[in-house]
């Protein structure tokens, strides 16, 4: 039995009847209306509880929760710079370890969490993240992926999907919009041979919270890739975040799975996948795409989903997606 399976063998999940009442991230922060990212962060914090140290990268979730002298955080929280959340988490974890060893403190159960957006994780911060995963610190890294630099005003990142319009991938006669395919960071995390990797979205809150809890329980590094709709940047309605996140799963754009000790497990099988057009429809960032563009993207999405299914052992042992 692997490290993660061993740690998770007695895991009991959350359900809607026994939701923790604790809110380490309090309301009254300054997120945009309909922010899917802060919803995901709130759910993650409910799952993590209060015995945590949060290490934040620069980004929306940093700015909106910590405009001095106010803070939305009821737990220890540290922000240093844009690119080094994983390095900071490494340092905090090592410091606690050293202090516990020397008897200065006796707090063996603290959970250390680094988090950042897609830019802070997949672009400028990937070096620090890779280093921390390789060193094997006992921490959780959460990437809240809203598929562009929203804090500075919607510039593309390596998490921006092919074809999406942003201010630095503007669609027009000479440009389709984002011209490269989305970076597969969960696969990069898996390649570090860490015990636990998972993808999640706030459209499936219990699934998200269970995965966060598992990531915290597993000794060693755990990586969570959390799909986080941004109505401001995606140009969808502020009441559509959760719906768009759900459509992303139902149209196979964002498959939900876990990788436990290197073994892929599908969390949710999409039995009757919706066409990608249904996912694109509410979002103006995709409005300029032609039928041919959409067909090309659909082909890629299908192939990527097949790939995930294959890694999960073909049949995809996950639960059936219900309407």
């Amino acid at each position, binding site marked *: 039995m692997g490290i993660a399976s061993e740690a998770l063998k007695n895991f009991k999940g959350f359900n809607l009847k026994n939701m923790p009442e604790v809110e380490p991230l309090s309301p009254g922060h300054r997120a945009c209306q309909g922010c899917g990212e802060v919803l995901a962060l709130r759910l993650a914090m409910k799952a993590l509880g209060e015995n945590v140290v949060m290490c934040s990268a620069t980004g929306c979730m940093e700015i909106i929760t910590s405009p001095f002298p106010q803070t939305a955080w009821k737990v220890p929280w540290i922000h240093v*710079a844009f690119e080094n959340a994983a390095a900071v988490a490494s340092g905090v974890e090592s410091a606690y370890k050293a202090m516990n060893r020397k008897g200065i403190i006796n707090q063996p159960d603290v959970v250390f969490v680094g988090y950042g957006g897609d830019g802070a994780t997949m672009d400028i911060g990937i070096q620090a993240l890779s280093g921390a995963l390789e060193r094997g610190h006992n921490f959780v890294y959460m990437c809240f992926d809203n598929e562009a630099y929203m804090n500075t005003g919607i*510039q593309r990142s390596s998490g921006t999907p092919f074809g999406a319009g942003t201010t630095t991938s503007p669609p*027009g006669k000479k440009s389709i919009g984002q011209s490269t395919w989305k970076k597969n960071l969960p696969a990069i995390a898996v390649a570090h041979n860490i015990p636990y990797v998972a993808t999640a979205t706030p459209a499936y809150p219990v699934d998200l919270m269970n995965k966060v809890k598992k990531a915290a329980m597993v000794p060693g590094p755990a990586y969570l890739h959390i799909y986080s709709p941004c109505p401001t940047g995606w140009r969808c309605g502020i009441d559509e975040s959760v719906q768009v996140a759900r459509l992303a799963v139902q149209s196979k754009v964002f498959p939900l799975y876990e990788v436990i000790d290197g073994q892929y497990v599908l969390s949710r099988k999409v039995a009757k996948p919706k066409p990608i057009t249904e996912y694109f429809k509410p979002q103006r960032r995709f409005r300029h795409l032609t039928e041919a563009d959409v067909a090309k993207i659909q082909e890629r999405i299908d192939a990527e989903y097949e790939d995930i299914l294959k890694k999960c052992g073909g049949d995809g042992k996950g639960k059936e997606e219900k309407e």
Partner: protein
Amino acid sequence: MKPAVLTGEHFITGDVACAEGALAAGCRFFAGYPITPATEIAEHMASRLPHVCGTFIQMEDEIAAMAAVLGASNAGVKSMTATSGPGFSLIMENLGLGICTETPCVVVNVQRAGPSTGLPTLGAQGDMMQARWGSHGHYEIITLAPSSPQELFYQTITAFNMSETYRLPVLIMTDEVTGHLSERVVIPEPGAIQLQTRPVPKGRKDRFKPFQPGPNGVAPMGIAGGGYGLHVTGLTHDERGYPCMNPETQAEMLDRLTGKIRRNLKDILLTESYRLDDADIALVSYGVSSRSSLAAVDEARQAGIKAGLLRLITVWPFPEERIRELSRKVKCLVTVEINLGQIHLEVQRCSEGRIPVCLVGHAGGTVISPDTIVDRLKGLLQSLHA
């Protein structure tokens, strides 16, 4: 499809004017990373470059952006990046590589108040010494300081011309206020814009030495893939470009890197004088602060103070001789800048103790008002007479 040079009158921000200046100068490659308050330059380049067969790349950080800019330039394309404080710090290592490999390019710093994250949305002029000495080792660099959107347009062209002429990265040190200020910008006909391109090698390809200086101290530049054999390295290298680890080659290389600037100062140093002929007090300023200073000179004159202004367009290399000369003519020098004394130190150095040198400055976050300068001048005058 819009042309590269948008001839006509525009009402645009400094950031946009800078991007248009780059396009008019022939820049066809931009690599960058989002950062307030320079993001608009990248955004404008992203939408404009595809129209002129250029390339925009958003890189994973500023380190990579600067590396991409050097690569594009070595492939023969005029290239540029734009950033602000924290990104400027990340650019520094590859800026040094650009200096050592004599790679022409332009780096724009839309300054915000620091250190560190500082005031991301508010201006300052606190990176001036970082512009001079931010990368390691001893080197010379050219730095321009525009004070308006119109100047940002023209000085971006000048920066490209100087970078091509002298084969080095040229810095444009503007600030948040100028970058975000909307003003009238006149863009001339393409034919009215003078453009320089890097010296190109002639003669036998097999005898080419990529770092052998020409008559003005600048070596003709072989383009990667152009047929001339190249060896480009950040190691200390001789005229052939081959690494050579000894004090003699190091001295020779530094003489080449610094000499091409020091020996062409009269073409590189750009300053403007305003009412200095009969001045008792000379203000020395640059960038957005020179606009406050200009207004302050007129206000002071109305109050009976004989003030004048020396506006630095080229800040680095520092116009040492001009300051020395001025310090022999006036009774007092006053540096006006949004920091706690950086160019002020240079003014002090070059006045060589002949006259009092004062600073009007603050830590950043807002511009200096002309009234603040005039009040200071009144106080100074009293102490000079006392």
